[in-house]
């Protein structure tokens, strides 16, 4: 497996990609951009972006498309889905929550925002299995979406007051007499700095700063009588810190931007090639210099030479949600789309149950997505999507008509749409039936990689 030489050359790595004779702006790069930054794109979007070039394509992903998959404007669709989210009641089933999100992922005009919402769901991993309150989980999801491409410090501040998070981390009652260290520990270890970048004393003092924070009747509230108003020393700074002071203290640590940029690198560049501190440093600087604007390092990554380097393509294993949502978007199964609830259950069978990450550290990802059972379920999903037996998922994709609509021979069409340069369409041999061609491509090892 080739490793990109750019990994050892941070300046060139993060410099904007400029297409040239050796590295042209081709379908493989366009599809790579959409696979990583969104959930794969339909043929017409790939062709449009192929024509428009990398700058316009990346900008459009950052800004979002004008129209959603159901034909409404992006704002109308968001308003509709927001109102459906607001209708989630305490009796909503986990499948309903998952379905609402999957439905949005499939049809959204803002796939990068949903990609980042999923990224933050894995980062601030919180599970319904313990929170047991669908309304709180939905509110957290709304928060993650609202701040997905916004300011990280602001997001950290709202997450620190999010009832679902506090229930999840047993931090619903932070009393002066007995400071609860759970949230303080996780916020440093998993959310901002990473292990080894803080001391036990920092955790104890941060826990004191967090006293007085309670969840009462499913709402965050601060009880002054329970707050330890004494002086605390955190990361070498001393003051009478309160809960609101913690985000500022955390992002002021240089390790914070490095830790987060390391995670962004693994999400968008490679989960196989470990980045050197020197490679992450310029990205972290961009993040810090922007005042922790999440879109700043993202823009740098998505426009970079490294992102479009051949050697980083397929350096990630697609998650079940990537497979499910990406396939449906690529195959244009949008009007009607599939049963979002059935698809959510299918993702669960493949190992990714939304709103229920396995631990506070989120899903393991990478090769952990691939095992015998998961592969069998990935194949079953492909067969269901292209078949007619499964009424909830199947019967909505006419593989022959789709290739014909775009005027491309089916073997070439499904290779170019789904795996591009990963293999030559000729290896599909004698398979001619479009549905069989599509199924075959969807079940190849290459298609399992992002």
């Amino acid at each position, binding site marked *: 497996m080739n490793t990109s030489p750019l990994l050892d050359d941070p300046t060139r790595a993060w410099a904007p990609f400029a297409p040239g004779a050796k590295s042209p702006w081709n379908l493989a790069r366009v599809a790579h951009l959409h696979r990583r930054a969104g959930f794969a794109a339909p043929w017409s979007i790939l062709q449009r972006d192929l024509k428009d070039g990398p700058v316009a394509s990346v900008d459009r992903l950052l800004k979002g498309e004008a129209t959603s998959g159901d034909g409404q404007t992006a704002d109308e669709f968001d308003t509709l889905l927001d109102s459906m989210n607001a*209708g989630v009641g305490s009796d909503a089933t986990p499948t309903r929550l998952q379905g609402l999100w999957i439905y949005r992922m499939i049809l959204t005009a803002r796939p990068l925002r949903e990609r980042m919402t999923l990224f933050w769901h894995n980062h601030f991993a919180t599970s319904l299995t313990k929170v047991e309150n669908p309304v709180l989980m939905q509110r957290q999801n709304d928060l993650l979406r609202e701040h997905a491409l916004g300011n990280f410090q602001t997001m950290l501040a709202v997450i620190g007051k999010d009832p679902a998070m506090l229930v999840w981390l047993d931090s619903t009652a932070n009393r002066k007499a007995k400071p609860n260290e759970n949230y303080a520990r996780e916020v440093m270890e998993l959310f901002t700095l990473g292990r080894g970048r803080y001391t036990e004393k920092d955790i104890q003092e941060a826990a004191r700063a967090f006293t007085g924070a309670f969840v009462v009747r499913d*709402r965050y509230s601060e009880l002054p009588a329970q707050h330890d108003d004494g002086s605390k020393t955190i990361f070498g700074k001393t003051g009478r810190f309160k809960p609101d002071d913690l985000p500022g203290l955390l992002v002021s640590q240089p390790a914070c931007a490095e830790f987060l940029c390391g995670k962004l690198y693994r999400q968008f560049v490679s989960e196989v090639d470990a980045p050197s501190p020197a490679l992450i440093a310029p990205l972290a600087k961009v993040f810090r210099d922007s005042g922790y604007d999440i879109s700043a390092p993202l823009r740098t990554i998505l426009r970079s030479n490294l992102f479009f380097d051949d050697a980083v393509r397929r350096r990630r294993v697609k998650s079940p949600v990537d497979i499910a949502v990406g396939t449906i978007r690529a195959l244009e199964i949008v009007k009607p789309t599939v049963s*979002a*609830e059935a698809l959510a259950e299918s993702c669960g069978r493949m190992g990714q149950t939304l709103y229920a990450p396995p631990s506070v550290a989120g899903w393991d990802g990478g090769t952990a997505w691939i095992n015998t059972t998961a592969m069998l379920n990935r194949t079953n999903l492909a067969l269901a999507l292209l078949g007619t037996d499964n009424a909830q998922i199947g019967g909505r994709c006419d593989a022959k008509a789709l290739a014909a609509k775009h005027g491309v021979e089916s073997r070439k069409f499904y290779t170019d749409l789904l795996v591009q340069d990963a293999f030559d369409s000729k290896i599909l041999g004698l398979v001619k039936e479009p549905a069989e061609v599509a199924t075959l491509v969807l079940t190849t090892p290459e298609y399992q990689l992002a």
Partner: protein
Amino acid sequence: MPIRVPRRKSALIWSAIAIALVPLAAWADGPRGAEWTSKDAVIYLEASHPKVLLDRVLDPKFQTYLASIPPYARYLKSDVYKEQKAGVTFVSALLETTWEEGIRSLAGGGIVFAVEAEKGKAPWGFIALTPSDPAFLTKAHAKLLELARGDAKTKGQPDPVKESEHQGIKLYSMSKDATHAIVNDTLIVSQSAEAVKTVIDRARGGKIASIATNADWKARHDRVSADTVAWGLVRLDRLREIDPKKFTIPEMVNPGQTFLFAPWIEAARKAPWVAASLNWSDAHLVANVTLPTPANGYSQSIKTYLPPKGMSASAPLRPKGVIASLSLWRDLSAIWEVRNDLFSPQFVQGLAQLDTFAGQFFGGRDFGSGILGAISSNWRIVVATQDYSKMNPVPDLKLPGFALVIDLKPDDDDFAQRLKVAFQSFVGLANLGAAQAKAPSLELISEDVNGITIASTRFMVSKAAPGAKVSVHQRHNFTPSVAQVDNHFILSSSLGLIKDLIPAVREVAKPTDSTLLIEAEGAAIAGILDVNRQRLITQNMMEKGNDKAAAGGEIDLLLGLLRYAGHGTLTAKDGDKAVDFRLDFALGAK
């Protein structure tokens, strides 16, 4: 006006034949066919008045609903439909008629479909189409053959129609699975030439004891009225004889079915035949099913299910906002006494536990004699909408209220009090469980209405943070309540429903002639769905993948169908000779 011949002519011709002949099994007025059907035929179906059926089906209102049903709407948009329609239009034009008039002429006399079978032999059947205009049948038949042959010729294919002759009548085979002939001005279609020949033999004076000589058939036939669009008779005894494994109902079915339907299952197990009919007028769609009772009578244990002479279920209750109402005659005390004969030993063991458990709530009374024995045989269940505007808090998902109304026997003074105490005990137990699960508890309250004291409960409401938008759980639809009104005891899921039921149960219940009556109001069901419209749309989008407009369209269709179905009534009448089931829709005009 010149006729434009479609390009895919052969497909169209065959489509036309298929459409014109085979699906016509749905339509049939004094049709021929019974006289050519053996008295031992296992299935006899007759579309007596195809014209009536056609009028109903082609009614614009019905067509509108039909076209809104997604699979049918998809079919209407499909290439197959367009091709078939073009074929039918093409052939109709050649015959100088419209497809509707063509069908009326071809099958207006009625349609008969019969299946005969013998043990160890493959079953066979035939369809007999009696035209209202025999000349048109001859003309259409000749034209279709001409088209099929002409089409094959232009393609250089062999003659697709194989002809043979039997008793001077021509048989035509267009595939190995279909042969037809015109016999006595009637079109006979069957799966084989041999079958058609058998029909010809019978028509040409072959000796046959026809089904028309069967007294049961004749009795059913005599009931055919002007709005009977179809009726049929199935010989269950013959089916059991031919394939016992498939058509014999086992002695022991599941306890739920036994508890609810034992005599009707017994009748179906032993009945020699079952008959059904469908009547369709402007105002009503009525289906009747008749099962004869066992020739030697029911077993002693099953007899406990049947109302004695002069007894029956009372008329269903119709309080304000009723959605559905059920009234059943069941002597549960008598059934309890014969439980060993009705249910499996394992199930009877489970019932023994119920006996012990129930005793604890009813002062140690025996479940059979002390509890069930204190209740009369009239059981009434009501489902009704609630006044959601009066609820506090108003639940997000709005559900109807449910109530069970039982009549207490007059000679057991303290049983009503026992029921109330049992209700309070259940509430106490529920609260204990809720406390352990950190779930909201029920608060006991009491309310007097027109001199009746209602013991009621309501779920505690969690205090919300000021200004917070709070979701209200569906549990707040429920305010479990009980009340005694004269000798009636009401157990209801809702305080509002129990208040509405008080005047209704005080009215003297009208006797009926049925064991079971169920009524449902399509408009009321539509109403309850309509108040949950937004949730249903979300559900549709999540479960079917529709967008909002398509989901809303499907919900509107469902509401429209419910309103069209109007007032539905299902009755089951246990007679000496037969059990009669009747499903009647008073079709809504809205």
